[in-house]
């Protein structure tokens, strides 16, 4: 029977079936960060348990870490306490911790791949919903809650129900100015925010074949925004080339054996899927959200929807609520909406290729007067490489604040926050009410180059026009 990658990896990691019918699944690689792990270590202590496989858990700090303050103690004593806690827990339980001093710290979903920890055919868990990012390598990666973090620490396994697999095929060449971010915003717009519930997504098709690993990660990252717990791309030469020579990648003879094994996990031709969705790459345009969930998106050339055009009472109520919060006029173009803040970064779009692409376009330009623009590399390694290439200079000269690695304004658990009802053009992944740190703050999600276009014009803009892309 031909099988999908999901089935193969699931089967290979199945320990046994539990009494309630769920599977006890072995987790190969466990990633932790400071926000969702301390309570789990507390639970372990309460139960008198140890970490079963300390060498398979890796930690970093990202959510609370200030991006404009490098010296501890941090001004925010709660942030410092969380920092101290993860340090203490890692030391006590023998877990590798990519602290700032290691030069490898960063957003957990950027650090894993960078270190070569994210490998094809493996299972990965992390107490963070964007763990699906790691699926870009052909891993099955689950975002989990803290009790499950405890389970994985204590047993290297967790209890899970099997998922259905939906294959999403995107074929063809993306039009100029269209990015991986637009692909996933387009998909979520089609499925809605809960259309993926109960599914793992297998992304495939010639568009994905041509994508770099960073582009694949951007798409897999936001699988959860469409309700899917897992998203993955089958491993191929692009995957292996990325992994070769990374600190935790297999070396020497082991490398060849690993590649052979990794290849064997790829979905078989003829594998069956619960359903298949097909998208023509040429139909995807630079996209922006207009509402308060990532499914409320349009292409930059469209108008914001009107409640009158809603096809259901629910949709109508959703539009009214969103437009009221976003303070956007119904039925009008979104292009031209004034922005206050531009944010480049996050585990969706805080990688080297994102900053390279932006730098290419903003070189010699200036951030519009009155706009606060910040650029936050996703990891110290991304930061260093950008600095080597002079990208930090290009961005600073344009008027962006160049910051240290972290989640920053993606969820604003650190000092980077919107103020009042500021409108932010953001390369992050969530536009929920209050997401960026002000309870009336407004977020419009888009690709990094679209953020750059908004930053230099001071308004939501079509990057293709601003930067003469065609």
């Amino acid at each position: 029977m031909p099988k999908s990658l999901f089935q193969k990896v699931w089967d290979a990691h199945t320990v046994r079936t539990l009494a309630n019918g769920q599977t006890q699944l072995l987790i190969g690689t466990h990633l932790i960060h400071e926000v969702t792990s301390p309570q789990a270590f507390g639970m372990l202590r309460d139960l008198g348990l140890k970490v079963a496989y300390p060498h398979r858990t890796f930690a970093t700090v990202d959510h609370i870490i200030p991006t404009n303050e490098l010296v501890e103690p941090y001004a925010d004593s709660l942030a410092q306490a969380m920092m101290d806690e993860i340090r203490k827990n890692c030391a006590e339980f023998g877990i590798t911790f990519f602290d700032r001093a290691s030069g490898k710290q960063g957003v957990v979903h950027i650090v894993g791949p960078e270190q070569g920890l994210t490998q094809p055919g493996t299972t990965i868990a992390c107490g963070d919903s964007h763990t699906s990012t790691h699926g870009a390598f052909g891993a099955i990666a689950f975002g989990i809650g803290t009790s499950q973090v405890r389970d994985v620490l204590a047993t290297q396994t967790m209890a899970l129900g099997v998922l259905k697999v939906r294959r999403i095929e995107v074929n063809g060449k993306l039009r100029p100015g269209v990015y991986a971010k637009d692909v996933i915003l387009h998909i979520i717009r089609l499925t809605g925010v809960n259309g993926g519930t109960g599914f793992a997504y297998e992304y495939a098709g010639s568009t994905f074949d041509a994508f770099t690993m960073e582009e694949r990660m951007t798409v897999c990252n936001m699988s959860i925004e469409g309700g899917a717990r897992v998203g993955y791309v089958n491993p191929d030469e692009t995957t292996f080339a990325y992994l070769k020579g990374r600190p935790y990648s297999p070396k020497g003879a082991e490398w060849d054996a690993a590649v052979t094994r990794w290849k064997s996990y790829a979905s078989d031709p003829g594998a069956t899927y619960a359903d298949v969705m097909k998208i023509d790459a040429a139909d995807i345009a630079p996209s922006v959200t207009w509402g308060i969930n990532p499914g409320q998106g349009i292409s930059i050339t469209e108008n914001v929807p009107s409640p009158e055009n809603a096809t259901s009472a629910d949709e109508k109520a959703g539009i009214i609520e969103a437009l009221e919060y976003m303070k956007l006029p119904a039925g009008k173009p979104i292009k031209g909406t004034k922005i206050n803040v531009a944010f480049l970064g996050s585990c969706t779009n805080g990688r080297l290729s994102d900053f390279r692409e932006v730098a290419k376009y903003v070189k010699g330009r200036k951030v519009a007067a009155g706009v606060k623009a910040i650029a936050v590399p996703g990891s110290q390694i991304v930061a260093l490489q950008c600095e080597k290439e002079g990208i930090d200079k290009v961005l600073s000269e344009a008027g962006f604040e160049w910051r240290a690695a972290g989640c920053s304004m993606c969820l604003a658990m650190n000092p980077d926050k919107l103020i009042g009802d500021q409108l932010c053009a953001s390369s992050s992944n969530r536009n929920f009410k209050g997401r960026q740190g002000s309870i009336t703050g407004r977020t419009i999600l888009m690709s990094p180059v679209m953020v750059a276009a908004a930053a230099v014009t001071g308004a939501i803009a079509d990057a293709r026009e601003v930067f003469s892309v065609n």
Partner: protein
Amino acid sequence: MALAKITSLTGRAVYVPGNDIDTDRIIPARFMKCVTFDGLGEFVFFDVRHDPQGNKIEHPIDKPAHKGATILLSGANFGCGSSREHAPQAISKAGFKAIIAENFAEIFFGNSTTLGMPCVTAAREDIAKIAAAVEADPQTEITIDLVKLEARFAGQTVKIAQRESARDALVNGRWDAIGELIDGKADVLKTAATLPYLAA
């Protein structure tokens, strides 16, 4: 580890209407700067219970008539967004023991079940009936029966549903998997030995 068998529970309810109520709404990120879950209860739905200046504004869960309610009623796609267990923990620590909604986001559902806080689904019109009964008399007692898969209130009965693995875990007192996972150790070692990246 002996866990309670959660076969049914009875309590008063409060209705928090809306679809796609996300985890940022349930517990804003700034309250996640904590190393334990204790004390999260007071921050549940904080940003919809307070104005931007932090003054209390009207919200169903703050109504005196609903004080002591243990069942939360809501709309579709409840708990979407992040995997933060802080969200179900905040709801639980605020005194809720069960949630009835049209449907739930995946991770939220699993996190809640592991806490022994049943998330059951009901048809929209049935949720409206329960909400109407609660509106008419906040003292209305609702019984969520996980064996018969029904909710009973004010002389009415409506159907509820729950994913079988979760229902089984709750009614049989194995909603927190940790004990069972630990018991599987011998099998874990066997499976790990077949995977080169783990055997190393």
